[in-house]
């Protein structure tokens, strides 16, 4: 028989077990585990270790299974990882499946009564008498349900070696201003860690070690980052209808605006309206855009479908508005709490007739912030709806990032004529391409000038904004609208991010939140002597950089999280000559994509 030590050594050699593993906590939603998981994640972050936290939750308020995964990675890879090394199995409903999902020699912390040893004998079990321990914290039944989750925080931190002072700091931050809650939670952690210290013998190899890789970093979710972007873009009208997973864009924004955009006499420099539905939300945002405000709405797939008619109206009548689409799994209700990149085609071409919209596609929380600011500039510069295409994984999960930078450019309010300019010009035609860039001039309602008024109509209109059904008027208008987008993509839209590898024969194209997994894949491929170049699309319509990139390589993989290879179709339709080089790598089960998944698909395809 092997000694315990020998066994331990073997495991140590087969994995990197310091600062490189995933912790999965399985609980039921509504049990208050979110606080415990946040405390764990923040403590690791404050120990200088790169972390990401993902909440996999049901479309439900209370009582259904939920999983929180913390990935620690010293190299800074933050993507979702299917492989789980460390499990806290608090939910009896899912415990059997959960423990089955662990890697061999993984670690399982569970309530003793679940007897998970019987399920997997090839993982290390630490069985904890959670019920007895929580009884020492409180005898209040309701509180027990909540603080039981802090007991596992204590157990996990003792087993992994998380710094006690960081746990304490994180608890104080989590329950800021609630002295009783802080006391109770600290007590629970302490009872958990004491139990582990006294009763458990550590036989697993997983450890955390202080690093210095999170200095000056922040942790934020993508939706809050979008909200910050909107505030610093100077948004003044926010209209919305709650829908998962976009709700927290507006809820965060409301908090920020109330704190930072009230005047000294307590008046708002903004309006937030919770609309009766998405149809009204976009209608209000369009009304405010016409009125001269930076306006926005935020929604997800079903809302995008409902907004289709109005977005076509705003495109055709040239009214600026910013629409956030935090994508979730469709079609129909789909899986509201699962992530997807399934709205690329529908958002890009939303509405009947010939329509095409500017879309910006953030791939990180930093870009949720900075591309949101750009979206508001683009909307007013080009007088058209602009989409911010984020997704649930980016929007609702916590990501580590460099601190956001203050915008370097002033607001671009676009071509708006005021009274003095109208006086000087002596004429005004709302839809005339005066400058040859396809972008006309507009006036705001209320402008005190007899030339200022014009009639916005979703029906055929002339350069002077009068009604027309003349064939040539219509063609001219449609061509000009197209020219406007040509101007945008040639010079003004966010350019793709390109990382060239001189040795590469293979190209990879991605966009949005898959960026994390793609970068990890590219490094893994490189270790395996497969060199690749990478282009990340950051906006639609695509500019020539994308076509030029594809032309350089024998084969280009387009990685996306939808069934129908939506971005590949857009690339193929805009650059038909190179379309044959494109191969689709898809992952669309609702979970964020794992680097291993992309890696395996590419390797299989290379053979």
């Amino acid at each position, binding site marked *: 028989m092997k000694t315990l030590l020998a066994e331990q050594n073997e495991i140590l050699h087969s994995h990197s077990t310091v600062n490189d593993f995933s912790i999965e906590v399985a609980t039921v939603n509504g049990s208050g585990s979110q606080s415990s998981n946040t405390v764990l994640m923040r403590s690791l972050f404050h120990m200088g270790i790169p972390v990401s936290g993902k909440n996999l939750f049901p479309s439900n308020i209370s009582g259904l299974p939920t999983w929180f995964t913390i990935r620690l990675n010293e190299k800074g890879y933050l993507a979702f990882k299917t492989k789980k090394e460390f499990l806290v199995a608090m939910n009896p409903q899912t415990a059997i499946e959960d423990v089955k999902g662990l890697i061999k020699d993984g670690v399982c912390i569970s309530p003793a009564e679940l007897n998970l040893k019987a399920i997997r004998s090839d993982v290390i079990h630490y069985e904890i008498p959670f019920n007895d321990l929580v009884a020492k914290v409180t005898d209040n039944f309701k509180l027990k349900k909540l603080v039981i989750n802090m007991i596992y925080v204590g157990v996990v931190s003792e087993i992994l070696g998380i710094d006690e002072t960081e746990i304490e700091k994180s608890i104080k931050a989590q329950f800021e201003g609630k002295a009783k809650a802080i006391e109770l939670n600290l007590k629970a952690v302490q009872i958990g860690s004491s139990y582990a210290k006294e009763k458990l013998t550590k036989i697993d190899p997983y450890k955390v070690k202080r690093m210095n890789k999170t200095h*000056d970093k*922040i*942790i*934020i979710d993508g939706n809050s980052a979008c909200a*910050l972007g909107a505030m*610093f*873009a*100077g*948004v*003044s*009208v926010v*209209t919305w209808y709650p829908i998962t997973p976009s709700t927290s864009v507006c809820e965060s924004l409301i908090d*920020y605006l109330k704190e930072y955009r009230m*005047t000294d006499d*307590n*008046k*708002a*420099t*903004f*309006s937030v*309206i919770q*609309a*009766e*539905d998405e*149809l*009204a*939300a976009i*209608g*209000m*945002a*369009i*009304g*405010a*855009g*016409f*009125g*001269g405000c*930076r*306006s926005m709405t935020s929604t997800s797939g079903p809302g995008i479908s409902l907004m289709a008619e*109005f977005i076509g*109206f705003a495109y055709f*009548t040239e009214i600026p508005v910013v629409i956030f689409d935090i994508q979730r799994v469709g079609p129909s209700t789909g899986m509201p709490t699962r992530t997807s990149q399934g709205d690329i085609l529908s958002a890009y071409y939303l509405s009947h007739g010939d329509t095409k919209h500017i879309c910006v596609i953030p791939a990180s929380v930093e870009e949720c912030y900075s591309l949101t600011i750009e979206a508001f500039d683009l909307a007013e510069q080009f007088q058209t709806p602009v989409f911010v295409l984020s997704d649930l994984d980016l929007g609702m999960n916590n990501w580590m990032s460099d*601190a*956001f930078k203050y*915008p370097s450019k*002033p*607001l671009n309010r676009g071509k708006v004529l005021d009274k003095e300019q109208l006086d000087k010009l002596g004429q005004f035609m709302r839809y005339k391409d005066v400058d040859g860039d396809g972008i006309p001039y507009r*006036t*705001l*309602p*209320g*402008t*005190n000038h007899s030339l*200022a*008024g*014009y*009639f*916005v*109509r*979703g029906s055929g209109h002339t350069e002077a904004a009068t009604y027309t059904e003349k064939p040539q008027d219509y063609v001219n208008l449609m061509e000009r609208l197209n020219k406007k987008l040509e101007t945008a993509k040639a010079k003004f839209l966010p350019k793709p991010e390109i990382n060239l590898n001189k040795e590469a024969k293979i190209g990879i194209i991605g966009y949005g939140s898959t960026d994390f997994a793609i970068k990890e894949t590219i490094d893994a491929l490189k270790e395996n002597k497969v060199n690749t170049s990478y282009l990340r699309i950051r906006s639609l319509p695509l500019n020539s950089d994308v076509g030029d990139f594809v032309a350089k390589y024998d084969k280009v993989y387009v990685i996306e999280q939808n069934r129908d290879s939506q971005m590949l179709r857009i690339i193929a339709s805009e650059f038909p000559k190179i379309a044959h080089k494109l191969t689709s790598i898809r992952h669309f089960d609702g979970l964020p994509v794992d680097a291993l998944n992309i890696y395996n698909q590419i390797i299989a395809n290379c053979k």
Partner: protein
Amino acid sequence: MASTTNTVNTNKLGLTLNDYKGSPSTMCDGCGHDAISSQIIKAYYDLGIEPHTVVKLSGIGCSSKTPAYFLGKAHAINAVHGRMPSVATGVNTANKYLRLIGVSGDGDSASIGLGQLCHLIRRNVPMVYIVENNGVYGLTKGQFSATADLGSKLKNGVINDLPAIDICGLALELGCGFVARSFAGDPKQLSVLIKAAMSYKGLAILDVISPCVTFNNHEGSTKSYKKAKESEIPLHELGFVPYFEQITVDYEPGSTVDVEMHDGSHLRLKKLDRNYDPFSRQNALNTVLSAKEKGEFLTGLLYLDESHKDFTTIMNTVDKPLSALTEAELRPSPDVLESIMAGLK
């Protein structure tokens, strides 16, 4: 030239009636909507409202085309079908000083747009909202709308077997503070009601029966000119004195009620046969319901309540219009970002 300008009538701004007109109407000859447009033009002229302070809004349908036929110098937005209320809410939010007028129809307001109308009422967005109500879809050639009365007959003999949605009843139920019904064929009353609506701070709903001469003006229609003229029962005789005019004509106390509107104008309601009290919502609701049961066409100011908080008051925004805020007012300073970032570390 002085000699000619003297002969042209002008309002208090020195503008002529022509300054308030729009492009020529494309409605059918004799359409009730044109009669309403004329009264709108006259009301703006009489009240001396500057056209650039007005935004005209509409949805889709015959009625929704009409904003092109008045106040050609004002901004306008002809939105998608039934969704003008949300656009109006947005425009009001952008600039609370703009004077909004919405023109809609019975299809636009009572069918596809019913939801948005309800929420416009609930929010009490300050605007004049006119429903040009003819009981049919004109632009698609004569299908019943949701305000068509039970038993009303189409040109092809089809009888409407569904009950009508009553715009005024709905507005009262939802708490609208200015609810009136009028008739395109009663210009005198309509003129006063439009002016009163323009002077009201809040949402003013005017349900105006406006016969469709092409598709719903025949025998058997309950919304024809003939039927409306025969059955109209005014609740009171109305008079209006704008805030800038001296009140010279005395009225008999007891027989006339004088209401000072928000802007200082006076609305006068002279009692007719019925002793109608327009300040009781309960009474207004009862009146509308019983009129419906008896098949009476009651016109006039059904309900007025000046105490309602309007949407702009609720939104509590700065004195400037939001659309006029500068970058310095809209974008918080670098130290705000810095302190937010520090909190996320």
